């Protein structure tokens, strides 16, 4: 099973639109949304079927048992996260402030502090008997993590382990942090969806540094290329300097938001953006050496 990962660096460049279109274009049977901060892929290429949910846990946090606590105040002054407070001699820990370092547990002479599991998100796996979709949703105010992204990919791989399809497509998260690096491992080809703007270029450079450092093969396309032709040329020059093929310049096309709003991808759209997205698909098929049956 070849893995295609779609990333963008900057948010809102059209990453999910391109990923969804490629999923439909190749009739991909295994796909995942690792953008757990703002998962959107399911809105256009959802899988109808039961979702298997599984809680995802971060580091356990500390909790004080009031019956065992002797109010000795050993823990409070040492907590760097100011998570421990005391009101009328009753010590409590704010689970949002607690980082789960466990120092208070080590210091407590009464064994009154224990670890409680903390759910940071929920993993979801959906299948309709033919297609498998893996994703996750973060709990309010929690951060994405490399571990969570790894789990999303792992569940997808496990679900198709018996009959792996020829291609899996992963919609990644914006930025260049740990979730992005985690999504890059095991990737056969990274498709970067770039935006022709000062902000887009600045974020693209940072992303390419990370991907090249991890020795992942990269191809790029520019979305809304005609909005700023000068910056599109700058993307081309940047790609040339890294020997990265620029496999498509997707024009601004009102058909794109119209299709997304109708819950459709651009895979069969006759408009100018749809035409280029199919060219991008053909180039990816060549780069990944997919057999014609998989196209």
């Amino acid at each position: 099973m070849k893995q295609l990962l779609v990333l963008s660096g900057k948010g809102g460049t059209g990453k999910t639109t391109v990923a969804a279109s490629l999923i439909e274009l190749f009739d991909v049977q295994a796909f995942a949304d690792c953008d757990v901060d703002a998962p959107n892929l399911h809105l256009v290429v959802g899988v109808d079927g039961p979702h298997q949910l599984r809680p995802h846990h971060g580091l356990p946090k500390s909790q004080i048992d009031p019956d065992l606590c002797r109010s000795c105040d050993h823990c409070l002054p040492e907590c760097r996260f100011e998570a421990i407070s005391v009101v009328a001699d009753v010590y409590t820990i704010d689970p949002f402030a607690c980082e789960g370092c466990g120092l208070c547990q080590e210091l407590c002479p009464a064994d009154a502090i224990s670890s409680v599991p903390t759910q940071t998100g929920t993993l979801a796996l959906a299948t309709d008997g033919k297609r498998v979709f893996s994703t996750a949703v973060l709990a309010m105010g929690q951060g994405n993590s490399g571990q969570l992204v790894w789990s999303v990919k792992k569940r997808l791989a496990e679900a198709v382990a018996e009959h792996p399809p020829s291609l899996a497509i992963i919609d990644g998260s914006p930025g260049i942090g740990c979730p992005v690096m985690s999504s890059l491992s095991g990737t056969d080809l990274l498709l970067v969806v770039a935006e022709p703007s000062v902000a887009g270029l600045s974020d693209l450079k940072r992303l390419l540094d990370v991907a090249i450092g991890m020795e992942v093969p990269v191809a790029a396309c520019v979305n809304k290329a005609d909005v700023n032709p000068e910056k599109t040329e700058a993307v081309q020059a940047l790609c040339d300097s890294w020997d990265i093929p620029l496999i498509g310049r997707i024009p601004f096309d009102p058909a794109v938001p119209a299709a997304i709003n109708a819950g459709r991808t651009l895979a069969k759209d006759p408009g100018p953006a749809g035409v280029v997205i199919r060219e991008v698909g053909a180039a990816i098929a060549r780069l990944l050496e997919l057999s014609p049956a998989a196209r």
Partner: protein
Amino acid sequence: MPLVVLPVDGSGPASKVSDSFGRAEAFWIYDTESDGHTEQPNRGLASPGGAGIKAAQQVVDAGAAVLLAPQLGENAAKILRSAGIALFHSRPGEPAANIAAHLAGELVPLNQTHPGQHGA
């Protein structure tokens, strides 16, 4: 007692070399003298961050002389090199086939490392 270690997913005969060192399910520890092997669950697997560091510590503590892996984060490589463990590129598939390839001198040294996944 020279030990050769690989990160694997699955267990027993179903084990396959894992794509990731820090997030592997287990370590396959092969003893070149006895021609036998043991398996240890990866203790770093449940860590939101620093999984590669934790996994490398486990491999060092197991007394490994050689590690075969598809790739390594910077931090894990630093620990393993400091401990004098020789690093080689693994091939996808079964650990036994990789050990045979290693003993035949077919595997290439792992010199490149990625910047780490900072799995936090």
